[in-house]
């Protein structure tokens, strides 16, 4: 592969001195006078951005589970879960984003198991006070949300690839499930309380010395979204996420 330009411009300069730049600049002067110039007049006309643009995060309120994966995935810790009333008036947990700290990395949208968090094309975020930069769950909703704004996490398992299976994309929330170390479990039921999708059911596995039921969590793999809330809530570290690779 030869050089494309260096051969034309070897060590010694052989340009046309001052004529070429003057001609080039004159040409551009006329061109940009006849046609539009390249710049856009920003406040009056805006650059078009494609739908996959990573502006501020958006939220599709009804899809959200309140699982908190986005909270843990956020590198700047700008997301927190707050209690808001949903359409029926029940109090539910939904993410609230401090856009002043957000660095638009799109991790919340990427890791969301139900694609409730999206990226949006909204990039004009200036406000008069820092308080205004905190977007509550209702305000996070973006009007023109469409499918392109959802980020689908499509990971392939290394074990699958080794077997030659290349058409089964998956994601951590489809494969990783908490497993119980039964000895440590004290039947406190905290895990079932914090589970956002009610995937944990406490099953009686026996009776203890005092005659009370010993309940162990049974995790419904279909419902679980691998949010780790139970892992964090467990006072005895009996639960841990088992990663499937």
């Amino acid at each position, binding site marked *: 592969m030869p050089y494309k330009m260096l051969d034309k411009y070897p060590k010694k300069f052989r340009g046309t001195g*001052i004529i070429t730049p003057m001609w080039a600049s004159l040409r*551009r*002067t006329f061109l940009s006078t006849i046609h539009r*110039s390249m710049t856009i*007049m920003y406040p009056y006309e805006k650059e078009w951005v494609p739908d996959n643009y990573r502006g501020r995060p958006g939220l599709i309120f009804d899809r959200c589970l309140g699982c908190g994966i986005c909270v843990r995935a956020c590198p700047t810790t700008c997301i927190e879960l707050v209690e808001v009333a949903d359409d029926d008036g029940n109090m539910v947990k939904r993410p609230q984003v401090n856009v002043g700290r957000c660095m638009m990395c799109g991790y919340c949208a990427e890791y969301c198991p139900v694609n409730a968090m999206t990226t949006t094309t909204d990039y004009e975020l200036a406000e008069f006070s820092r308080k205004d930069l905190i977007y509550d769950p209702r305000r996070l909703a973006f009007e023109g949300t469409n499918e392109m704004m959802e980020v689908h996490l499509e990971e392939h398992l290394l074990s699958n690839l080794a077997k030659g299976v290349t058409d089964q994309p998956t994601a951590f929330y489809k494969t990783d499930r908490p497993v119980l170390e039964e000895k440590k479990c004290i039947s406190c039921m905290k895990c079932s309380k914090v589970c956002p999708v009610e995937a944990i059911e406490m099953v009686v596995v026996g009776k203890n010395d005092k005659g009370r039921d010993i309940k162990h969590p049974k995790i419904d793999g279909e419902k679980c979204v691998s949010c780790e809330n139970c892992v964090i809530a467990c006072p005895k570290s009996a639960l841990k996420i088992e990663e499937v690779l």
Partner: protein
Amino acid sequence: MGLSILDWIVFKNPMANEYYPFGDMYNLPYEIGYKLSEIILGFVAWFLNLFVHDNLWSQWLVSDVVMNVLAIILLVVVIFGVGFIVNLTMIWEERKILGRLMDRRGTQIGPLGYFQCLGDGLKTFMKENIAPKAIDKKIYWWGLALVIGTSVLLACMVPLSGRWFIADYKVGLLILFGMFALAPFLILCAGWAQNNKFSLIGGMRAAELMISYEVPMLIILATSCLLAGAYGINDLVQFQNDHLWFVIPEIIGFFTFFVCAIAESERVPFDLSEAEAELVEGWQTEYAGMKWGLIMLADYFRGYVACAFIVLLFLGGWAMPFAGTDTWYAEIWFLFKVCAVFAAFVWARGAFPRVRTDQIINIGWRVLMPLSILNLVVVVAIKLMGWM
């Protein structure tokens, strides 16, 4: 004198004034000033006369002396005002052309962006006016004042036509050029007085620049005068109108002078003394706020003068082909030419990077100097052969 206002404002012939300062030459701005002063003074005198009939004050107000004094003041105001507006137009022109050249839009405020300079001037006024403590105060302020003062004076001294001048010198070109060449010296002083290393180097560079281009410039100036046989601007223009614009016999000199003029007005690519990539703001580093704004304005005044020089020396001044020098649009035609030359200045600014100090000296002595001598030889040959 009657009660009617028309008795007081009669629009006398200004040249009939006893103290008319320009001898037998007709001066348009003086006439404008004279008529304005007649309106003003006549109105005041008529008003006083309404109360006290035939009072001496009214008589004195419309006398030749008072009228002349006010007319001269207004003459200066008119000439400066026109120069200032031309200056603003040139700033606008530069920003607009440069914008197009760089594929952007240029100024946007006002019709075609004309009022942007006014806005910028206003903004500069609002900037904090800082003068450092450890400066040499006298030279700091006087250098600034003189740089601005000489530039404005120069711009006012450039005649726009045979009837638009502030004084008619027989050696007008020399005086203009003398004033023009004063600036590097003042810049050197101002750069030194700021007690700032960047300013000092900028000032030194201005001096360095001066010795490299001013000699060829002066030679070409003298050559033109040699060709015309006169130092007066009027004579030069008249000669070019009668024979041929000097750009044709002195084509070498024209281009040489063009380069020198860019350097003289310290514009890119020869703005070594304020090279912002190396010297922050060069010799203007410590001039903050409106001081800087005025220096900027003065720079454009000098650019205007440089363009006017080129037009006067080579492009026939206000002479219109086939119409002579005494057209009613002579001033506009002259300013149009000036703006056209300035467009070429802007073009050069857009196309070239800043040159280095050693390069400018090389160019000055190895290229421009021989070329100007060659130009002289050509002109002497033309003169000897009697072609012009």
